[in-house]
């Protein structure tokens, strides 16, 4: 069969680079990764703090260092990269991928298999409808991170951070080190969005106040941000009258969540899960379109890049297998169901073709000894606690998936 590209990967962040490596190691001849930026590495280029890759490399690397190692491996394995190349369309059915590049113009290609690794983007201001004005000085935490760490600009001198996602916490410390003042971090929920260690090393280390069950209720300022009103909220997240307080600031950073970036997936006709916001996948990381695979934050937002890379390797390897005709069309699809304490999880189907890890988050903190498990009797692990900000895992061996299993239920319950 004359085919130009065996496995085509969209996005050269941690998932895409790992997918390239996985596909080549599985024997795919021509593996191409498309990247819209001029450089490889995706968001990790701007994550210059340490904390990445402890599991994979047994040491804590910064984002650029972590990607440097993977990119070198990918080059060694013969993965091809095309930078400054934007995918603007994937045709439904034929899976033809259309790209745009300044030198090469508009091109299209129909590979043996596709891996979607577009990552995620930040929830913007528009998603939370704060009353007041819309002056300059309001940024998502990741945008501010790019300004400071890659473009050399400080967004302001005195900032309030709304939301306690990890990027916001990291940016609090980053701006303090650059001489700014952080008035406080405000989180509407009664638990933190980010990891506890980031509360410790980014806020507590610098005496930055952290307010739970408190949010920004109004934005002030005409041209430039002059301040925000903050207020405590009740159990229904309604601001409590009388608790309002004006906080002077010239910058508001938003760390209010991440959304998988799936415009292309939708265009390709891939089924999107209503809760994860990413493609519905089986444990081979194959989407509802058998030729299209997906991995990393485009599927479900992970805590750790190590998990993203692991999933990238799996998706790349399976895409290579598919391109070589080694994945049968009639594989089993055993549905996974989330129990009462599970907010979201991925993958949603298990085939029994390979060992698998199901990643999940609880709906609310379980601050006591508990058990994460998969029924019928597939996995059980005791935990000291379970928290929405920290993913939990269920591991199932291929050999455990016997013919009598019709459905798998995962849950976390106190013991």
């Amino acid at each position, binding site marked *: 069969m004359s085919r130009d590209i065996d496995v085509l990967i969209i996005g050269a962040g941690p998932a895409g680079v790992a997918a390239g490596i996985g596909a080549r190691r599985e024997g795919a001849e021509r593996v191409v990764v498309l990247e819209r930026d001029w450089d490889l590495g995706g968001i990790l280029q701007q994550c210059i703090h340490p904390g990445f890759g402890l599991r994979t490399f047994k040491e804590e690397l910064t984002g650029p260092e972590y990607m*440097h190692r993977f990119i070198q491996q990918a080059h060694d394995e013969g993965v091809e990269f095309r930078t400054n190349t934007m995918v603007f369309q994937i045709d439904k059915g034929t899976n033809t991928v259309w790209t745009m590049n300044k030198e090469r113009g508009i091109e299209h290609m129909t590979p043996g298999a596709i891996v979607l690794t577009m990552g995620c983007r930040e929830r913007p201001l528009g998603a939370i409808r704060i009353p007041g004005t819309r002056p300059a000085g309001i940024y998502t935490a990741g945008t501010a991170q790019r300004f*400071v760490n890659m473009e050399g600009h400080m967004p302001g001198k005195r900032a309030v951070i709304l939301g306690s996602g990890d990027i916001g916490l990291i940016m609090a410390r980053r701006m303090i080190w650059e001489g700014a003042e952080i008035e406080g971090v405000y989180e509407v929920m009664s638990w933190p969005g980010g990891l506890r*260690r980031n509360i410790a090393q980014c806020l*507590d280390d610098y005496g930055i106040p952290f307010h739970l069950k408190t949010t920004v209720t109004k934005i002030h300022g005409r041209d430039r941000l002059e301040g925000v009103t903050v207020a405590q909220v009740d159990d229904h997240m309604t601001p409590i009258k009388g608790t309002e307080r004006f906080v002077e600031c010239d910058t508001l950073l938003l760390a209010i969540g991440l959304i998988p970036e799936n415009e292309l997936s939708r265009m390709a006709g891939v089924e999107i899960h209503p809760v994860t916001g990413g493609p519905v996948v089986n444990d081979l990381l194959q989407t509802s379109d058998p030729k299209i695979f997906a991995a990393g934050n485009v599927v479900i937002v992970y805590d750790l890049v190590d998990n993203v890379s692991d999933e990238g390797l799996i998706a790349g390897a399976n895409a290579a297998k598919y391109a070589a005709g080694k994945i049968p069309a009639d594989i089993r699809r055993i549905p996974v169901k989330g129990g009462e304490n599970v907010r979201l999880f991925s993958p949603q189907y298990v085939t029994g073709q390979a060992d698998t890890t199901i990643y999940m988050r609880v709906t609310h903190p379980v601050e006591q000894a508990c058990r994460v498990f998969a029924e019928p009797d597939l996995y059980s692990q005791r935990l000291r606690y379970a928290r929405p900000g*920290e993913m939990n895992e269920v591991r199932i061996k291929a050999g455990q998936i016997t013919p009598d299993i019709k459905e798998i239920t995962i849950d976390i319950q106190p013991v």
Partner: protein
Amino acid sequence: MSERKFICVSCPLGCGLTVTLEDSGEVLKVDGNTCPRGESYARSEVKDPRRVFASTVRVKGGKLPVCPVRSRTPAPKGKLFGIAEAVAELEVNAPVKIGQVLIHNVCGTDVDIVASRDLAAV
């Protein structure tokens, strides 16, 4: 005897550590850790707290105007702002190689500031 509590920052688990200290300041025991890294973090946190410092330096003639840097090893926590100032004053010429030492023995801490990415010249 006294007790001090920390959140371990050695890995994403973030274990809650309790260190019991003798009146002399010697560590009697560490509780709450789930691995040896937690124990050594707690001991270091009591005696000589350290953090990895990460920032950027200005670059002349590079593909980006700034290049990320880090302290190769953890630096004394009390000297982080001094280190931040030393790093802020530095400007380097492109190209920069990952791992390249940009400041040797920063602020007399015996810690080196190194580049944490390759940055090509324009």
